[in-house]
Each structure stands twice: as structure tokens, then as C-alpha cells.
């Protein structure tokens, strides 16, 4: 870091000194400037990290041995190895050893900012929390946000600058670059192309503009496999200009989603979940529940949350949209009358809620459908109420697919002499028919900046290791345009460069720190007077005040959307492409947490599969069965547009019958040690003329079998009948609920506290408890990853998951109800219930799991001998066992990542949810040190604080005024398996759905209630 930045930062700090605040802005430069720490870092990372990759069996064996010895060390009577203390030479301000600091920054999702607070221990970022002051976060994050921390410490990240595989220095790169740039200067940049992903960063945009100014003839292309092309085109169709829509779900009573997975993905999904769930929650006995209609071509969590769901092939949805529009009185053609029974009541419902309804279209639908949605909203008077419009958020909105096409054409035509790829992995994720790779090879000089030595890096002359988002300075816009300053939490572990620094080099600034680039840009924006103050605030808050884009009034231009673009009905099978729900478009492929995160609906991990409907499966004779080594299924061959792919088939109840869904993001060749060679590459089938779906799919059973790692015993009729008999998830329609608010409690009787041959224990002082509102939970998975990050939970790999040895402390059970074709889907997060009559404790021979005086079910790792008796006797099966040495005791970077407040468990011990006891203890100690009682809400468990739906409430059930006590007094409150008299401290609030009374039963979800006989489906 350069001296000058160091200077004015310390100045900054002096300014800051007065202002307190919960989170402090701290200059990483200073910490890193301490050579001691620098050496420390160097000692710790590059060399040893590379050493780790040595896969020789010997080290493995030693590792295991070492671990066994380490374990022996856990027994009380052996000596410990001598430890060293390495204090600072000059300790940075604000740093109190043993206490974390929180810094505001943002993580990027498809180029859009989601605000976060990062917990940092002595300069090591360890945990990500949401930033309550950020519009896209509101204090929560999604699973991707949580997993960013693992991405930062990923030992497989690219660590060097390479030229044709040879390691080079930054200086060498700069010198090598000069002639090429000089040549382009002469041509005005005619042969110069820059390819980025979606860019919202004002600074980066400014740099690019400056570059284009220097090279007028150069071109800036953008591409990422999941873009907003259709939405943008739709807006242009509807309003004649490119606009970005923002939805106000809180205001909407009736919502129609045309394949829009607004809860599952997108730059605003965290906020939208909050708003949506806010309208699903029932305080007391009355509620203004919203009602959600979903038409979709592939099951999503949004569809799972729907009150009425219509599974259709993606190509048929436009027809339904037109039918709805026609019903609303819009002059449209090509309406599909086939679903009149469903559309009729829907239209009535929408009409009834004019101005308080909302129609959304998904990116996977063509522009016309988006336009129709806008038109319908116009017709319903929703414009400006439940949906508002702003100028596009992207720095330079364009049709990315077209942009990529042009680039490929130019490259193939040999017009490109110098290509700079700033992030992204087009070689892997471009549509197959563009043949990008071949064209790329025509370019004489190809430069790639990326986090990994990936497929694209492999085909570029120069690869520059990119600095991670948590390592570099930048800025970015959120879905509503508000800008966040992105600040680094740690010096680049592997000495990477940020896009700003690379562009600075191209602009001729040599090696200019990203910090300066960003600051300079904002100096320009904030103006000189009180720049420091405003900059301070911006960095401190994590968002630039008042930077959100202003709403724009809109007028509908009756346009081309009236007539259907293509004829809707196409016979035969259809293929649908979707971003993977846990690893996105493939950018998270090397992230173990996300790989092992069960997909919300299929509960598959570590790979993708051809998702198909029970009926189609029956037709093809697909047999899925669970075995001790995993779920076995048939390997099918998909033939589509001349390409073929062998994929394991997986049966998904509620999938449209004549279509097959394939998730993008797998089949990576060069993702890293975690992500390479998993699943199949859907991009190999994806075509530019149908990014999201296409007709003419042929499917064939190969006769081979495949093993998948599914965390939940695959769906069977047995499941459904047993689930309903056992009243595990309890749910009712709003009407039923109003008739009998206590329906949930009456489903099974909870034994009274005194029903025991022993006197009941009384808890003086605190008694911790939790409630989970099943009405609010949408199954987004954020809590699972948050828990994994907070509690140092290891990743175990596909084989172990397949054997049922996954380690996540909180899991989300998925239950179907109502048959195979279009079932109701329920999510139930299950973690340790902290039973007052804990069955696990009684059977532990060494008292390694016992009750604390506050009613926590403590698990004492260092006392555990690993009999697994507790797990056998746990009716909830929430206990997790270290069958092997799952924790990575070697990789230095992963050691830095761990939460220092939680023991790192080793081989042979049981573990489970602790209600984040480390947070409880810290809060208790702080309160005691300040001689004050604990405040309600002062303690938030990791799962609670991350939950976008605010479905989880934790607190003191002995405190009559606490929120959790309030929740538990709700009539919907019930204990899972409480009839066993385990007296769980964690309880659930039954879910209440709000179906349209006029909707014919057999048309909604749970339609096929009667079709249970069709059980021959997946259960084979």
C-alpha cells in the first residue's frame, strides 16, 4: 500500500476519533503496513497454501495420525505443546484483542450490491452479517452472501499472474502490455475489446469511459449467463425506453408471478422476501395475508410459497399471460383458453385488488411477457403503487446476448487484436452455438482477470489473479441504484489486483492503488468541501446517503406485445435452463458450503440432474431408490439441437409434465479442487436462440445408473402419509384458521408438564427458547450457511453426504402434500430443539451432553467419546457426528476463516446446534460487566440474524415481555413431536395459506389430493 494513502487515512481516523458508533471504519492499510503482520501473512499463506495441494497419500496418513494425536491431546491428563504469543509491534487503534470489529461493505450478486457488515477478529474477516441500513439487505443476507467468506479464503483461488502458464510479475505484465497498447493507440483502439460482466460500479464505469475516450474505436462488451435482457427489452416494448422496475410487495394484496422467482434470486430477493413474508405473518388472530399465484415451468421456492401454482412448460406461460391480460380487458391476441378454470378466478381476484395487486414476469420469459405484465399492472392501476420504475441501474445497459454475439463475430473475423476479460468466464458459460472458444483463439493477445485459473484463464495468454471483493476497494449500486462503497477487510491474501487497478494500468497510471482510484472518483462526486466527512459516512454506513435513483413516471406505449411473437404451442418435450439454486451460474462452483447446501426443493447436493415430472418418469420407467451409499437413479441421455448429454434423472413432484429442467453451473473443468468435475455442463446444450427454454428435446434411458447425494430420503407416498399422520408440518387455509385459530394445537395433545414420574425442573433466571414461523419461512437456505459459517461446520463431500453424514446443524425439511402433479410444498427448518426432557442426555454414558442452568442442551465436545447413542435417541435427528476428521487442520487460510469463539471439532465427537451459545455468553458477560440485565433481542442467533423473512425469533421464555414469549403464546404455536413429552424449547408457528375460495380445488396446489393413488411414481 502506498505511503500517501496511509497518511490521509490516519488523518481520516483522527477525524473519526470523535464519532463513536457501533461499527468503526478502520484502515486495513495500517494493519497491513505493520511489517510484522505482513511477514505473518506471507509466512502463513502462499507457500503453505500451495503445499496443501500436494495430494500424496503419505501426507494424508500423517494428517490423520497427527489428528489422532491431537485428539489424544484433548484428554485432560496429557501435556499440551508449547504455544507462542505474537503481539503487534504497534497495535492499530480500535483493535481490542479478543473483541471483534464490524465493518460495512457490500458483496456483489450478478453485479448488484447487497450491503453487509463483516465481523473481523484481529484483521481476519470471519463472518458476514446483513447491513440493516442497506436497502437490498435490511439486515439480512442470502446464502451466497454468507458463503462469500469461504470464497475469500478459498485456497484454490488464483495466486499469481501467469503468461501462458508461466508465473510472471505485475511489472513484467505492464511492460508486456505497452507495445500492444501502443499499437492500439495508433489504430484508435480499433482492435481493442473489453468484456465485462454487468457493471454497476460508478468508478469502474468512469474508468471504462476514460479508456474508451483514449481508444475511441475500442468496444466494451458485457455478458453474464443470467442477465436482465428480457426485462429490459420488455420495458422498452411497454414504455418505449429501458427502465428498471422495483416492486413494493408490502403493498400488494394479490401477486401473480409469471415464472418470476423473485424470492429465489435477483438483486432484490433478500428485500423482497422480507416484504413478502411480512404479508404472510399473522400477529394474533387476524391478518392481511397477501395471496400469491405462480405460473412456472420449473419448480422454485417462489412456486413453493404460492397459494395457487400452475405448473406449465415455460413456452405455454405466454399463452396464459395473454389469457389473463385478455381477461383484464387488454386487447391481446393468442390467449390460451386451456386454463380458463384457473385464470377466471385469478382475473376476478386481480380486478378486486386494483392498485393493490402486482404482476411480475421472470427473466426466463420473453420480452413480450414482461411487456404484458407491465400492461396488466397498468390496467390494474398498480403502476407507481406496487411497482415503480427508475432509470436502469447498470452503468451501461445493453442487450448482453447481442453484445456477446458481436464480440464473437469480431473475434472470428479477426478484427480483435487485444481482448481484456475483466472477470467472468465466457469460455465456460457462453451459449454453445456461439462457439466462443474457437473465436477467442483468433485474438493475438488475450488478457484475463479472474479469481480462479478457470476455463477462460486457460485460453488467455495472460491471467491476472483478481483480488476478492473483501480484499479490494470498489463501489457498486444496489437494485434501487443506491451506491455502496466496497472496502477491503484484509490485505489481498494472494496479492491479487482489482479491476480498478488493472484498468488504471491500461489508463497508463502504472500501479495505482484501487483505494486511490475509488477515492479520486468520489472526490469528484462529493466535491471538495467536507469530502472526508461524507466519504467517512459513506464508508461507515455502507451506503451513500440519498444515492438511490429517483422514480420515473411511465406511460404505456401500446406496442408489439399485442401479438404473440412466436406460436405458443409446440408439441413434444421441452428443455428448461435455470441458474442453479445454490451455486448460481457456476461462479460459486468451488465453494464447498454452497456445493453441500441442499437445493431448496430437490435436496440434492454436489451436482445437478435432469429434473422431470413423476408422470414423465413413469413413462420413461425411471426408478429412484435410496441405498446406504446414496440415492440411485437412472442415467438418461438428453438430445437437444444436435448436442447430447448424459444426466442423472431426478423426479420432482409438481414439475410440468412434458418438460425437463437442467440447472446451469455444473460440469466445470477448472473450478478448483472442490468444484471441478461435478455434475454436467448445461451450457453445452444452451443455445442463444433460447437461453431459457427450447422445444425438441429428446430423452432416452441409457440403462446405466447413477448415485446422487440427496440429504432427504427421496419423496415417497410413505413420506406423505406418515408426515400427515404425524402432524409434523401443520398448516391450514386462512378460512379454516379463522374458524379455529387453535387448529395446530388440537392436532396432537401435548402432555402437561407434570406428566412425569419425576418432579419437573424449574429454571430461575434466563430460559432460552426459539420459535420458527412456518408461514414466513420461504426455504431460502440462508440460515443453513450462516450457521455453517458461525459455528465452524466442516464440509464433508459428496460421498459422505450420500451416506447421510452431512454436518449442517440446521436443515430445512421439505414436505409435499397433495399428490404428485402439483403438491403443496412446505419448508420446516429443523435444529436442536433443546428439549427440557432431552432424550439424548439421559443416554450419554459420560455426561457429555447435559442441560445448562438456562435450559440449553449443552454438547461438550471435549468430553464426548462418540458412542452416537444420543443421536439414536434423538427423535429429531439433529445431531451430527464427525465420522472422520472432517475439519481441515492443515490449510492455513481456512484456519484464519474460523470463528475463534467456537471450538473446532475433531474426529469422533458428536456436535449439534448450541443456540449460538458463544453469542449468549458474550452478551451475558457484557451485560454483567456493565451491571445491567440482558435486553430482549440483544442476543441474536446466527440463523435468526440472517433470516430475510424474520421467521426465527430467539429469546428468554422466562421473560413475559420478550418477543419469543409472545410468539409462543400464539394459537399457532406447536412443538414438533411434542407428544413424546420431550418438551422442546424450539417451537413452530403453524403456516397459514391464503387460497382463493373461488379457485376450483383441483386447479390449485394440492389439486391432486385425490390423485394419491398415482403413488407408483417416484417410490420404486
Amino acid at each position, binding site marked *: 500500500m502506498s505511503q500517501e494513502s496511509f497518511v490521509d487515512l490516519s488523518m481520516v481516523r483522527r477525524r473519526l476519533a470523535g464519532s463513536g458508533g457501533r461499527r468503526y471504519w478502520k484502515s486495513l492499510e495500517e494493519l497491513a503496513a505493520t*511489517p510484522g503482520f505482513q511477514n505473518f501473512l506471507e509466512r502463513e499463506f502462499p507457500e503453505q497454501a500451495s503445499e496443501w495441494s500436494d495430494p500424496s497419500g503419505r501426507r494424508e496418513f500423517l494428517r490423520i495420525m497427527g489428528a489422532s494425536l491431537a485428539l489424544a491431546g484433548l484428554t485432560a491428563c496429557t501435556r499440551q505443546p508449547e504455544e507462542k504469543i505474537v503481539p503487534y509491534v504497534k497495535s492499530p487503534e480500535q483493535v481490542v484483542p479478543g473483541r471483534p470489529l464490524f465493518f460495512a461493505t457490500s458483496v456483489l450478486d450478478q453485479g448488484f450490491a447487497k450491503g453487509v457488515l463483516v465481523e473481523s477478529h484481529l484483521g481476519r474477516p470471519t463472518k458476514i452479517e446483513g447491513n440493516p441500513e442497506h436497502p437490498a439487505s435490511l439486515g439480512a443476507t442470502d446464502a451466497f452472501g454468507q458463503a462469500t467468506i469461504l470464497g475469500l479464503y478459498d485456497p484454490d483461488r488464483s495466486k499469481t499472474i501467469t503468461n501462458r502458464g508461466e508465473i510472471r510479475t505485475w511489472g513484467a505484465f505492464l511492460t508486456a502490455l505497452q507495445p500492444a497498447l501502443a499499437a492500439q493507440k495508433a489504430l484508435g483502439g480499433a482492435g481493442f475489446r473489453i468484456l465485462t460482466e454487468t457493471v454497476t460500479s460508478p468508478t469502474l464505469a468512469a474508468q471504462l469511459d476514460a479508456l474508451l475516450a483514449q481508444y475511441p474505436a475500442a468496444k466494451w462488451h458485457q455478458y453474464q449467463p443470467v442477465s436482465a435482457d428480457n426485462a429490459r427489452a420488455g420495458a422498452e416494448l411497454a414504455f418505449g425506453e429501458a427502465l428498471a422496475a422495483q416492486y413494493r410487495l408490502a403493498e400488494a394484496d394479490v401477486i401473480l408471478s409469471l415464472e418470476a422467482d423473485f424470492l429465489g434470486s435477483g438483486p432484490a430477493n433478500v428485500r423482497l422476501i422480507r416484504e413478502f413474508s411480512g404479508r404472510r405473518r399473522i400477529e394474533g388472530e387476524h391478518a392481511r395475508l397477501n395471496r400469491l399465484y405462480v405460473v412456472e415451468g420449473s419448480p422454485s421456492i417462489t412456486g413453493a410459497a404460492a397459494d395457487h401454482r400452475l405448473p406449465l412448460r415455460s413456452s405455454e406461460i405466454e399463452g396464459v399471460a395473454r389469457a389473463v391480460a385478455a381477461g383484464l380487458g387488454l386487447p391481446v391476441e393468442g390467449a390460451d383458453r386451456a386454463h380458463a378454470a384457473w385464470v377466471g378466478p385469478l382475473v376476478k381476484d386481480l380486478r378486486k385488488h386494483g392498485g393493490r395487486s402486482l404482476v411480475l414476469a421472470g427473466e426466463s420469459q420473453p420480452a413480450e411477457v414482461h411487456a404484458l405484465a407491465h400492461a396488466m399492472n397498468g390496467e390494474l392501476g398498480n403502476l407507481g403503487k406496487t411497482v415503480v420504475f427508475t432509470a436502469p441501474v447498470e452503468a451501461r445497459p445493453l442487450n448482453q446476448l447481442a453484445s456477446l454475439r458481436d464480440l464473437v463475430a469480431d473475434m472470428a473475423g479477426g478484427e480483435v487484436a487485444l481482448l481484456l476479460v475483466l472477470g467472468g468466464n465466457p469460455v465456460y458459460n457462453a451459449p454453445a452455438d456461439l462457439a466462443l472458444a474457437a473465436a477467442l483463439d483468433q485474438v493475438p493477445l488475450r488478457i484475463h482477470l479472474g479469481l480462479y485459473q478457470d476455463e477462460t484463464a486457460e485460453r488467455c495468454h495472460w491471467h491476472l489473479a483478481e483480488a476478492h471483493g473483501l480484499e479490494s476497494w470498489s463501489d457498486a449500486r444496489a437494485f434501487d441504484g443506491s451506491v455502496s462503497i466496497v472496502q477491503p477487510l484484509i490485505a489481498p491474501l494472494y496479492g491479487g489486483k482489482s479491476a480498478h487497478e488493472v484498468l488504471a494500468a491500461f489508463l497508463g497510471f502504472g500501479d495505482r492503488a484501487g483505494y486511490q482510484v475509488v477515492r479520486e472518483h468520489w472526490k469528484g462526486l462529493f466535491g471538495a468541501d467536507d469530502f472526508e466527512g461524507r466519504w467517512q459516512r459513506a464508508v461507515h454506513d455502507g451506503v451513500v446517503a440519498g444515492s438511490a435513483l429517483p422514480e420515473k413516471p411511465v406511460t404505456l406505449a401500446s406496442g408489439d406485445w399485442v401479438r404473440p411473437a412466436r406460436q405458443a404451442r409446440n408439441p413434444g418435450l421441452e428443455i428448461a435452463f435455470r441458474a442453479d439454486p445454490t451455486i448460481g451460474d457456476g461462479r460459486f462452483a468451488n465453494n464447498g458450503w454452497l456445493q453441500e447446501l441442499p437445493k431448496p426443493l430437490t435436496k440434492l447436493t454436489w451436482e445437478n440432474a435432469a429434473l422431470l415430472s413423476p408422470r414423465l418418469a413413469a413413462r420413461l420407467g425411471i426408478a429412484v431408490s435410496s441405498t446406504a451409499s446414496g440415492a440411485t437413479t437412472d442415467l438418461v441421455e438428453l438430445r437437444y439441437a444436435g448436442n447430447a448429454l448424459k444426466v442423472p434423472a431426478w423426479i420432482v413432484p409438481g414439475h410440468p409434465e412434458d418438460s425437463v429442467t437442467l440447472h446451469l453451473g455444473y460440469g466445470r473443468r477448472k473450478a478448483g479442487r472442490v468444484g471441478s468435475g461435478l455434475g454436467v455442463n448445461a451450457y453445452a446444450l444452451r443455445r442463444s436462440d433460447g437461453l431459457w427454454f427450447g422445444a425438441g428435446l429428446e430423452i432416452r434411458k441409457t440403462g446405466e445408473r447413477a448415485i446422487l447425494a440427496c440429504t432427504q430420503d427421496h419423496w415417497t407416498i410413505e413420506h406423505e402419509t406418515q408426515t400427515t399422520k404425524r402432524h409434523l408440518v401443520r398448516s391450514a387455509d386462512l378460512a379454516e384458521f379463522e374458524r379455529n385459530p387453535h387448529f395446530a394445537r388440537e392436532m396432537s395433545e401435548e402432555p402437561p408438564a407434570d406428566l412425569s414420574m419425576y418432579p419437573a425442573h424449574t429454571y430461575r433466571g434466563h430460559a432460552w427458547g426459539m420459535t420458527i414461523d412456518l408461514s414466513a419461512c420461504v426455504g431460502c437456505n440462508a440460515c443453513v450457511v450462516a450457521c455453517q459459517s458461525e459455528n465452524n461446520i466442516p464440509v464433508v463431500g459428496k460421498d459422505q453426504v450420500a451416506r447421510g453424514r452431512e454436518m449442517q446443524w440446521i436443515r430445512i425439511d421439505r414436505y409435499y402434500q397433495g399428490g404428485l402433479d402439483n403438491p403443496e410444498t412446505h419448508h420446516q427448518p429443523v435444529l436442536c430443539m433443546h428439549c427440557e426432557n432431552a432424550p439424548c442426555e439421559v443416554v450419554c454414558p459420560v455426561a457429555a451432553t447435559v442441560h445448562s442452568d438456562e435450559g440449553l442442551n449443552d454438547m461438550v465436545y471435549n468430553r464426548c467419546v462418540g458412542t452416537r447413542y444420543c443421536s439414536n435417541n434423538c427423535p429429531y435427528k439433529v445431531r451430527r457426528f464427525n465420522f472422520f476428521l472432517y475439519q481441515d487442520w492443515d490449510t492455513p487460510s481456512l484456519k484464519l476463516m474460523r470463528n475463534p469463539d467456537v471450538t473446532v471439532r475433531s474426529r469422533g465427537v458428536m456436535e449439534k446446534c448450541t443456540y449460538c451459545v458463544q453469542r449468549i455468553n458474550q452478551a451475558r458477560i457484557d451485560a454483567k460487566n456493565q451491571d445491567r440485565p440482558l435486553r430482549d433481542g440483544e442476543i441474536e442467533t446466527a440463523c435468526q440474524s440472517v433470516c430475510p423473512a424474520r421467521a426465527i425469533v430467539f429469546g428468554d421464555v422466562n421473560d413475559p415481555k420478550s418477543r419469543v414469549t409472545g410468539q409462543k403464546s400464539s394459537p399457532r404455536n406447536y412443538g414438533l413431536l411434542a407428544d413424546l413429552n420431550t418438551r422442546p424449547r424450539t417451537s413452530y408457528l403453524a403456516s397459514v395459506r391464503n387460497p382463493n375460495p373461488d379457485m376450483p380445488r383441483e386447479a390449485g396446489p394440492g389439486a391432486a389430493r385425490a390423485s394419491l393413488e398415482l403413488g407408483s411414481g417416484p417410490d420404486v
Partner: protein
Amino acid sequence: MSQVFHRSMNTLARASLAIGLLGAGGGVGLVMAVSRSPYATRQGVAREQPVPFSHQHHVGGMGIDCRYCHTAVETSAVAGIPPTKTCMNCHSQIWADSPALEPVRASFRTGNSLQWVRVYDLPEFVYFDHSAHVNKGVGCSTCHGRVDLMPLLSQETSLLMEWCLECHRAPERFLRPKGEVYNAAYQPPANQLELGKQLVKLYDAKPRTSCSTCHR
């Protein structure tokens, strides 16, 4: 004739039987003893340090307060080992060229941290919080002993779990007025028990013996 053994064998046989039985018991006792011995706990074993820092001199002699160096003790789980800067505050003038302090100066020059040997080393699975203790009237010397008399620091107490429990079960036997917490030379008064009882009430000191208090 069928005599197999010599007379003496009778005594021998009986003796060995007795020895066998006693030996079994003795073995267990021995293990118990060893696991509590300084060999296992390192109790009272002075440690070599990169710099022969003497608490006796600084605390006993100069009367420097614990918190001058261990700054975080009142607010954090760890007391904190002082950065080299803290040493140099004085030693840039005093003993500025003593050879013994060369490592300190070197550290300050080069910016490479001093590497001290950890004396009080709890297992990784034990979470001790200094602030929680000093704020409730547990004196430094209660666990760390008379550091003002230690030229080279050694571990005063066994740090065995049973030792922790002694105090967590009966704090009144050890608590002292908050004012005396940092007084290394503090001697508990004759009426410690009743004083302790008062302090427990006064400071609302409720030490817990639940596992998750220290293990998580």
C-alpha cells in the same frame, strides 16, 4: 514322591498374590497423581522467554499497574500482551542500550513481533474471559500468584478443571474488593469468608458450573 515345590514357595506364592492385588490399586493411584503433578500441568515451572522480562522488577520494583501493559483485561476475554511499542515507551530512554533489551529494540526497528512463550495455556476448547472475572472481584494474583515476586514468570496454578471449579463453586473463598483486584501483594483478611459473602452479594457474582460456561 509328588512334592513339586520347595517350602519357601508358600510364602512366595502368598506374597505375590497380595502384591498383585495391591499393585493394581497402586497403579491407578499413580496415574491420578501424575496427571495432577507439575510434570503434566507445568505448574510452577519458570519459562525461558526471548527477553528475560521480570515482573518482579516492573510490578514489585517500579509498581507499574497490570493494566498498563495488559490493556484489554477489563473489557475483553484476553488480557492482551503489550505491543513492542509499550516497552519502548520507557526503554527508548531507560536501559536504551542494554544488550538484554536488544531483541525489543530489534523488534521495534524491523517491525517483527517479539515471540513470547505462552505461560498460561488453556486447551483450545476452554473459553476463559478475563473481563468477567476482574469485574467481579477476582484478583489477578488469585490465579497468577505473586507476579511481583517472580523474576521469570511461571504458572502459579494447575489450571485443571477441578481447580476452576473450586472457585466457581465457592466464590466467597476468593473474592476481594474491586479496588484490590490489581494489587499483586493483596493478602486475604482473616474474615475472608464473611467478606466474601458480602462481596458475592454486592457484585452479584453468580459463577456457573454449566458446561457451556467455558466449553462451546
